[in-house]
């Protein structure tokens, strides 16, 4: 009888452990994102223009270089920061000068930011400056979109596609003059 009681007790312990495992392996549910919102992601990796222009070397300077290092001109390695601005319904959400990557500052500028925005119809505008100019932007794009609840909208920048892409599609983005 005592043996039966022990087996019953063991069954109860195993059942309790199974209950803990079965419960916490997928409950309680977690809501990590508000129900009536959408997500706007701004992310790109883009190398801006070099700081300063290339300069032609004089014949004397070329001759002073090691034979395998001789070249007609030298260019500064360091790039200017990329300035980016993202606005939602004409409200600026993000505006930042992104420093170039790399120890020598010659790598691309990078950004990855997420924003939680109310679902609905919005005007999304993005602008980017990647030259030495001190004001204005070299690229600009805007689009009115309807963001459903739970939608994820990505603003990227791909110079090879002509500028900004909204949800992987290039938008009317012209290089500013």
């Amino acid at each position, binding site marked *: 009888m005592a043996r039966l009681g022990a087996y019953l007790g063991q069954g*109860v312990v195993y*059942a309790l452990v*199974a209950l803990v495992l*079965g419960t916490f*392996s997928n409950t309680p549910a977690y809501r990590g994102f508000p129900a009536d919102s959408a997500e706007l992601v701004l*992310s790109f990796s883009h190398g801006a223009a070099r700081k300063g222009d290339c300069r032609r070397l004089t014949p004397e300077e070329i001759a002073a270089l090691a034979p395998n290092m001789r070249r007609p001109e030298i260019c500064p390695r360091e790039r200017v920061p990329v300035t980016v601005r993202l606005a939602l319904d004409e409200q600026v959400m993000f505006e930042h000068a992104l420093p170039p990557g790399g120890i020598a500052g010659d790598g691309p500028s*990078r950004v*990855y930011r997420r924003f939680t925005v109310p679902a609905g119809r919005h005007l999304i505008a993005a602008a980017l400056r990647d030259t030495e100019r001190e004001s204005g932007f070299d690229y600009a794009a805007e689009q009115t979109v309807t963001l459903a609840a739970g*939608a994820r909208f990505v603003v*990227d920048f791909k110079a090879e596609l002509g500028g900004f892409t909204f949800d992987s599609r290039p938008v009317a983005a012209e290089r500013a003059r």
Partner: protein
Amino acid sequence: MTAPIRIARSGLERAEALLDRIFGARWNPLYQLGALGFLFYWVIAVSGIYVYVLFGTGTTEAYRSVEYLTIDQWWLGGVMRSLHRYASDAMVLVLAVHAAREFLLGRLRGPRWFSWVTGTPILWLVFISGISGYWLVWDRLAQYIAIRSTEWFDWLGIFGEPIARNFLTPAALDDRFFTLLMFIHIVVPLLLLLVLWLHLQRISRPRITPNRGLLVGTLAMLLVLSLVKPAVSHAPADLAQVPSVLRLDWFYLVFYPLIDHWSAGAVWGFAAALTVILVALPWLPPRRAAPAAVVHLDNCNGCGRCAADCPYAAILMRPRSDGLPFRDQAHVDPARCVACGICAGACPTATPFRRKSELRPGIELPDRSVADLRERVHAAAATVTGSPRVLVIACDHCAGAGGAGGATVAVPCIAAVPPPFIDYVLSRDLADGIVLAGCRAGNCYHRGGIDWTEARIAGTRDPYLRRRVPRERLLTVWAAQSEGARLATAIASFRDRIQARPRCRAEPIGEHG
């Protein structure tokens, strides 16, 4: 010991006592948490191999293959997937309880730091293994984990490109990514096995397989759970959508909501602080360690019993160096010795009957010598009053620590008592009965103390307790610190029992030594 720790320890001991009653000491799962961890590891490995055979490494193939396993082949693939899931969860559970238990019982100080510190990377590796597995399913949960994990790592700034950019759009995701993930999901558990091996390096005879009854029961539990509540996926990943309501596996993903609500840097700080605190615990606060056992070569005949009984592999037998006609001699590694004294209890030269020469066995603790034990036994016996006279020898970690009422002699571990001492106390009429009080059965603070003591008394392990010792005048009580009442009751009952019997004197004894 602070009050919260004392309360928690008392709670743990009550749980152990309850499970002792249900499972018995041999099957008590709380005494075999490490072995259960190994069992879960092998269940994960076997089920994982099966799932891997049918897994498709690709952005669409991954989800499709897991759905095939779960739905079309529920009777085998689904069960294997569920076993993989639940054994992984159970592994986290037993690791957490194992770590908490070792902490509460104070089994992390001194040379035991090694097992504790090597246990910390095990926690990290288990989490990495589990999380990378969730990633492979490539459902909404995997999408959430992938994005949050990469954002978290991007905070470190060690990657050229933000790796979270890999999950911007479906086009950004490459099939080869799943091959990389699979590689991580296989290599990290193999690395875990290596660290588990390291974790056990300073332990003699580690238990890595649970007792058969517990093993069968645990496997049956996992199987029933897998059939009753099979592991299922979320909807397939969709990078154009934000996963909102998620059924998190809280065993592995408990820290992910923190990434949502804190900054990534704060979560890194939290993880780093937690790791540093865990690693530093064996030295918080610093305490002076008891000196390691010493070998008296002139009395060591190289029999090797001390090395065989040492629970921490701290004693090695080396070739004789002093010219005496024995092959080996004992050598103590002070970095591994926890000063439990079990070696002295195992030494055949540790006999209190020795009168003609100094009581100096082949091996003993310098600050708790065998000669000192004999003196303390005599001193305690002199204080025994009333009838019958009962002498208690109690280990430092049991219910008798700090005195069990009446004459009590403290020892670091109950197996530190050489069996001739029992004979000595009774045959020299120092007491009418002797009680050996140690930790709860199956749960010796120094691992092997209870087993060795019982085997020595039963005459199955050297050094034996001589047959002439009247067993009815010897009581062993295995009781945890919180079980003082049980010890007191057992001693009272023992008193009544021997009171009712006439004194059974041992045969005349010749002097040893």
